[in-house]
């Protein structure tokens, strides 16, 4: 079997062994979405106003929490260090892992947002724009939070560091996405902003795996 196939087979098995990992972020999203009206007010007009933004932030959080421990168990079991002995660049393997993670754990999350949208009475056209921004933006978010996960692998103390590093990287994505949503509500042109978002994701997806692999190497070097 080629190394790529082995990686994919393993990720599939892991996803099957931990089906919870797929459902948990979806579940989290729905819980957060149902906490908002409870804490705010059940008024559907107000909810519709802030609905799409809430869904965006909640999805971002769900994704973050989901990706936070992306490499943790492989690292502490010593499986991650075995990746170094495979006949492929680490960045390539990391890229594969990130893609698989996006497909298995982020896409299902996106698929459930329409229900959240219905519950917060978000209008249909805004909902469609919301879905599109999520599809286009999540690759970048996944890469960045993967980087955060890799940076925090080694010690419990680097915890803050990894997360702080990630924060400024999320901001442009959120601002662009919010721009798209506001335009969708107005009914004006969203394509240019979407293109920007897409470009951002593309660049992230090509460059971040290299940074992630460097971070992983670093942390393996420090452990016993």
């Amino acid at each position, binding site marked *: 079997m080629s*190394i790529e196939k082995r990686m994919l087979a393993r990720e599939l*098995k892991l996803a099957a062994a931990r089906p919870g990992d797929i459902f948990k972020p979806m579940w989290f999203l729905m819980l957060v979405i149902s906490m908002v009206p409870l804490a705010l007010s059940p008024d559907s007009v107000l909810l519709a106003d802030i609905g799409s933004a809430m869904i965006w932030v909640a999805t971002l959080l769900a994704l973050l929490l989901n990706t936070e421990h992306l490499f943790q168990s492989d690292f502490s079991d010593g*499986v991650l*260090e075995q990746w170094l002995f495979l006949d492929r660049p680490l960045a390539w393997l990391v890229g594969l892992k990130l893609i698989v993670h996006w497909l298995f754990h982020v896409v299902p999350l996106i698929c459930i947002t329409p229900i959240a949208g219905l519950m917060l009475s978000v209008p249909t056209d805004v909902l469609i724009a919301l879905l599109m921004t999520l599809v286009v933006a999540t690759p970048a978010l996944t890469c960045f939070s993967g980087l955060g996960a890799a940076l925090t692998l080694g010690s419990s103390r680097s915890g803050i560091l990894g997360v702080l590093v990630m924060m400024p990287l999320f901001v442009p994505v959120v601002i662009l996405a919010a721009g798209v949503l506001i335009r969708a509500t107005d009914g004006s042109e969203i394509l240019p902003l979407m293109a920007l978002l897409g470009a951002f994701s593309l660049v992230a997806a090509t460059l971040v795996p290299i940074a992630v692999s460097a971070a992983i190497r670093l942390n393996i070097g420090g452990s016993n």
Partner: protein
Amino acid sequence: MIFEPVSLNISQVSCERDDRLLFHNLSFALRSGDILRVAGPNGAGKTTLLRMIAGLFEVQDGVITIDQEPLSERRHQVLYIGHKPQVSRDLTVIDNLKFLTGFDEPVVKQALIDVGLRGYHDSLVKELSQGQGRRCALARLWCSEAPIWILDEPYTALDVTMVETLDRKINAHVAQGGLCLFTTHQLPQSLNFETLELGRVD
């Protein structure tokens, strides 16, 4: 299978950790057929040295080569088994091994039988006892194509039968032209090895 002749060269390697000098200007060379036991008291730096040779710990001072080439080029010729379990707790025994070795079901199954895990193929690793988990990690040796084995305390948690089986396997490996570096605090009975003593330098 017979391996191509292979050589491992460690020259002038030094290491300091936490301001403690672990070893200084260490040099030795291993060739096909060699078995080297790295010995020394707890904290002497055995694990550190083994991880350096495996390329998992940065060489601060000195050079390590395989067949005159830098380590990073020859990664896939090395098989390293360390202190950590090396297998995922949430996967079954057989899935772990299929990923780590790249071999197909029948080969892997045979390896598991060889290490005495018959009947545990589909158990999750987290349901195994300590020694059984270790056996699962060691099963990789039974389907490995790497000539250079680096084993950090492979005998830990193994019962007497398995210790013997492992000794036989290491002997067979070097007979095929492989080489093996290992550490242990228990003296192996049936291996023919040389010893590198790492002492406290300070």
